[in-house]
């Protein structure tokens, strides 16, 4: 099956199996290994991507569903200054230990900051409730998102 979609701003056409998982297409066919395959069941958020401006889990989507869609993965950090600034804040705030959850966390954080005018600590915690970090705790991640929100001009109550 031939599928056309936009991947990180570039038009793509690929001949592929329609029932392949999106995460496998990204990692195997496009070598975009920033999107992580962990639980495979929608519980951990490591495979978070953006589809038409909304966060989605690429382990629970089939390639056929991508037809005509606009996809953003963590690799778009090369082109997207805002995404890059969120990543930098994560580094500065020590919000990364092993880094496995980080791509999903950064995309989720960027989406949250984009969509909401004011982010409270509670908003941030709820916002990342579908992204698991098993290294430490969430304190530095929440703090990093708060700082990133403030940098982008959004006030928060941390």
């Amino acid at each position: 099956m031939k599928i056309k979609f936009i991947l990180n701003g570039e038009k793509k056409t690929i001949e592929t199996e329609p029932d392949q998982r999106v995460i496998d297409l990204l990692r195997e066919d496009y070598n975009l290994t920033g999107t992580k395959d962990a639980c495979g069941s929608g519980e951990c958020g490591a495979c978070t991507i953006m589809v038409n401006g909304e966060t989605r889990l690429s382990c629970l989507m089939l390639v056929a569903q991508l037809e005509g869609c606009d996809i953003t993965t963590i690799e778009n950090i090369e082109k997207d200054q805002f995404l890059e600034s969120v990543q930098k804040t994560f580094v500065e705030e020590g919000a990364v230990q092993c880094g496995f959850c980080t791509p999903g966390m950064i995309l989720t954080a960027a989406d949250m900051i984009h969509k909401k005018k004011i982010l409270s600590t509670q908003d941030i915690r709820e916002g990342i409730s579908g992204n698991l970090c098993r290294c430490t705790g969430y304190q530095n991640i929440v703090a990093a998102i708060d700082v990133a929100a403030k940098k982008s001009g959004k006030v928060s109550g941390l």
Partner: protein
Amino acid sequence: MRPVLLPETIDGLWDIMDTYPDAMIYSGGTDLLLMMRKGIFNPPSLICLERLETLKCVSENDLEIAIGAVTTHTQLLNNNKICTHYPVLVKALKVLGSPHIRNMGTIGGNIMTASPAGDTLPALYVLGAEVELWSKKEKRKMLIDEFITGPGRTLIKPGEILGRILIPKSPLYNIHHYEKVGLRKAMACSVATFAAVLNLNENKRVDSIRMAWGSVGPCIKTIPEAESMLTSRQLTTEHLKKMADIVRKIVLPISDIRASETYRKQLAGNLVKRLIIYNYDEYKEAHGK
């Protein structure tokens, strides 16, 4: 290779269903794709409804609000009509899965999965929701509690899809209560859930009440006799204690990885008792006292 079809119109859907009669139908995929990965289902083809715009809207008339079956949980949470009329449903949606799951999963999917732990179901039961089933030839409707007959089982017929969910606008309730007990706050399958809508008058007397429990039996549990016992009574700790004892005798939960049968029975009763703690404040707020 397994074909995956994404119809964009209802007529297109019927044609595809004729061509692929053994296909399984999904929308968000948060349940079906997981089951397929576990090897529980292995359908020869799949039909994904997520591009059917006609099934993605919320509309209303004087009597009811109609929700298209493939409206996502996030879309419902952002919908003013739903937030205004059905706070109990909004409370259920807020504790369903995670933001990502709510972006993908749909209300129709939550109904068709027919899990005893489906988070929106107790809310839909107490609101008296009806399902509207569409086929190429006709549309028919029935109450949600008649439609769901067991875990994963519904009265849907081959050639039919769940088209819309119809929720009556009346009666109006001044208290909408929903509580979920899980092992953690997000992404947790429930140990038990409890939804209640009621009308309390100024004397704290119950004019009308509907209650439903999730995860304490094969289907969502309603107990009409318990509702009649509370009607016209004061909402007091004493009455609710009695009610809790009755509820514990009636529910039929199982023991599983999340909790034991005994624990769930105790919990089903305790959740009713908590009506007094949670909702009186809300009631006072609603009445400005």
